[in-house]
């Protein structure tokens, strides 16, 4: 949903204000915003700069340092494939290749149809279940390339727009 500018700013300000913690920093505010609206728009950089009494450039410096922050709205569904050491040993490279092929992507990124945002993940924290993928933040362990594609396919076909 493309929010108009005022609503977006309001969401951002609410996200910053929602942090109930003793140390509100540039980083924590950026995280709160990404959790709330899924990415870091221009307006978020500006609001964090004002709230932290610093400049947009300083905030952007921090935000762009972390690959976890994204600066454009994500697609509808998030897919992450773990390529940490354990998953790697358990054959995650095959899963990676299969998912990339299926999504018609060459590397991390968003599919053109606006459906999927694909990312590598260094560790999803479930090594005992390796190999692991995460689809819309739900983990699927001990998974094969084919099963991965099935899961993604299922989301796609359950989406009313795609029928």
């Amino acid at each position, binding site marked *: 949903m493309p929010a108009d500018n005022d609503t977006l700013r309001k969401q951002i300000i609410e996200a910053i204000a929602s942090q109930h913690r003793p140390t509100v920093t540039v980083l924590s505010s950026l995280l709160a915003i990404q959790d709330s609206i899924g990415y870091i728009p221009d307006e978020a*950089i500006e609001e964090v*700069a004002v709230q932290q009494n610093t400049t947009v450039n300083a905030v952007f*410096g921090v935000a762009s340092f972390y690959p976890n922050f994204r600066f454009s709205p994500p697609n509808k569904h998030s897919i992450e494939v773990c390529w940490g050491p354990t998953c790697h040993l358990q054959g995650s490279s095959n899963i990676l290749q299969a998912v990339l092929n299926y999504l018609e992507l060459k590397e991390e990124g968003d599919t053109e149809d606006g459906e999927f945002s694909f990312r590598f993940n260094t560790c999803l924290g479930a090594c005992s279940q390796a190999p692991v993928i995460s689809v819309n933040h739900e983990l699927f362990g001990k998974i094969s390339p084919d099963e991965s594609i099935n899961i993604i396919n299922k989301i796609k076909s359950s989406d009313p727009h795609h029928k």
Partner: protein
Amino acid sequence: MTEKINLIIDGKEIQAEPGSMIIQAAMDNGMYIPYLCYYPGMKPYGACRMCVVKAETPTPDGSYRSLPGNPASCTTPISEGMRVETNTDELISLRKGIMELLISEHPHGCLNCHRIDLCGPTDVCLRHVTVNDRCVTCPKNERCELKDTVRYMEMELTTPLTYNNRHLPLEVKDPYWDMDMNLCIVCSRCVRACDEVRVDQAITLKDRSGRSIIGTSNGISLLESGCEFCGACIDVCPTGAIVERDYKWDKAETKTTTTCPHCPVGCQTSLDINKRNKLIRSIPVREAEANQGMTCFKGKFGLDYVNNRNRIKTPLIKKNGQLTESSWPEALDLVASKFSQYKGNSYSLISSDRGTNEDHFIAQKFARQVMDSNNIDFSSNTNTEIFDNLSDMIGHPSATNTIWNLLKSELFVIISSNITEQHNVLGVPIKQAISKGAKAIIIDPRETDLSRFSDNWIKPNINTEHILIGGIIRSVIDQSLEDHDFSTKSCENFDEFRNSIWDFDLSRVSTETGIAQDEIQNLAKLIAESQSTSFLYSLDTISSELKSSASTSIINLALLTGNTDKPGAGIYPLFSGPNEQGARDIGCTPNFMPGYNHNPTSGIGLKQLNESINRGDIKALHILGNQASIGSESGKTIKNIVDKVEFLVVHESFENEFTDCADVVFPSSLFAEKDGTFTNLERRIHKVNPALGSKFDEDEDWRILCQIALRMGSNAFNYNTSHEVFTELSTFIQTTDEISFDKISESGQIYGVERNYKFKPLSMTLSKGSIATDTFPMILTRGRILEESTVDAKIELVNDKNSITRNEIIELNSQDAADINILEGDPVKIIGENFELSGVAHLNGINSGTVSTTQLFGSLIEKVQEHKTEDPMLYFDELTLIPVRIEKP
């Protein structure tokens, strides 16, 4: 004095300041360790690893313990007895390896081309290297630190050596600077200069690891990212990544250090002159004590006017209503014979505000001795009131402390001054001190860059600043917070002064100023409890009849709290021209002789000139122009009356309204062609050196005056050099030091003056009337700041350059707005004489009768850059108050 630390670097015993890093200790002792990211004066960073060394420290049992690994000498502090090796084989090979990594991302045709020793610096490349990598395509060719370092290390680079070209687009759309991030080595000197030194953060290091590069937030234009266009990033860049756009590829033939003619800070800057006698670059001098390697947009990019070819090339004489070229003897003879008819009070001389001390001295000597007239003044002397009481109250009309002493201040009280724009480098220590914890009280109706650094931005009603300060004084005394010892023992007149302040009843002060009583008490407490406070004021927005009261109350407050000349404390009256201090000190004013000797019959100065000419008292007017006064208020008034005098002589460099009316015009030298001295606001005498060779038949003003004097029969004007003039004028300067031309070092020389402090009783003067009129009933206070990210700005390309537009927010008092039916968010238009601005209304509690708006510095810079006149910095839009009316479009 703290004791120095002894250490041994490469077998040489040296001494260095405690707390310094190894690299600094080595540099201070004339030794060189290769470095790229380190920069003197900035915090250690340790990014490039070029400066690695071997170091060991003594242990109690007499043996030595090595510091682990190869520490970077820029981040390793020295210690007593330390032994450092900088050039072992291991270190050299390590450095070479690091350098190879660095240049694996940097085009280096300039480093390994086999014709390096064969080509001269300006030879055309004969295709030995691909076009983009040629040495001649790099703007920093032959002045690149990366190249110098590679050469120092005598690296053998194989040909061809491939490198990873980043293929990043060039950034060439912002004013004045070009950025080519393909040449960047990510030392982040520029980011640190902008953040640590200038406290602006207009650029940042974005992304990380291999993609890490310099840029702005989301790639926004510098016009909106908070840049003050000071060029500090350009000056520290070791490669050609960030450079000045003008004369980008030009090579300097000579470099001459001289003094910037734009403001009284007197930045020392090194001017690069190319072989065609053009000024191509201005690089501020890091060792200079007045500016410490800093300058501003004026000193960096505002000196190009000296290259303008539209100069007045020869003397001109008006014949049949037309200015026609003539020879020097003819023009001088004519002026001399004419002037002998106007001796006495019908003659007036206005010296240039960009005149050197020598010009001013000869000007006043000429007026007084040859023309028998005290009608002598200089063209920026429009703010006389702030100097009125200085001699009486602090002994000498000048700042009581130095510029960089501001760094030690705990508190700044800044009254009606736009320091970041008018005295930019003065703002650098202020911003640095504030970023380290100092506080600032800004008393100004306008929003300025510094008001954003302050927790106490006070906006009293217009023209009540002096009453507010009176109230603060009253509150200090009421709360017994004054520095009683200092006030009674070191200052005169305390009791009389104390008795005068009962007038300033806090409730009345509060009604007049619109500032709540407890806020006034709070300010009093803040000022009195600070250990060191600096008071800075130029009183831009205060009407002239009240400037004297304002200045008096500020000095009284400074004396009362004991903030005169101790570390971190001082009184800084701020004026505008580059050499006003000099002009005053050597008597280029109507009421004082050189050295502030009182003049029994004071003459007509700039302020009364208009009236005198209209009355017909002044028949011959002599203006030493140099452009500078044209843009100012006084320039505008004089412009209307110059045609009323019988005989007008103008010394000028470019044609303008004055020369059009002149009977005789002499071609005058510009600052970069002059040989002389300027005195800055801390009484530092700086040399002005001729960087440019002579271009046409121009001459320095004092020499022209001497020639006229000789022709009028005076023999007191036989000077051959400016040195001789200085020797004579220095005997008049009131000082406790000995001043001699030869003693003035690269950093200039501050001369001491005797101080005696004296309170002056205050009375509550009310403003005589507002500048508002029936047609323009409201007063517009305009502010200007570097960035305001929460207001959306639009950047468009106009002629391939970034241009910024914003929907300006116009602040109105809610009651005023209700009276004229304006609601929050309504589009409104404010109209003044020669002024128009549209925007969106924002209603709040600002003072009734005022309208307020804050614009971006970026839009000003854009306009200045586009300005087509010879010297655009003179048409710099100062933030004066403007009477306006509000309309709905």
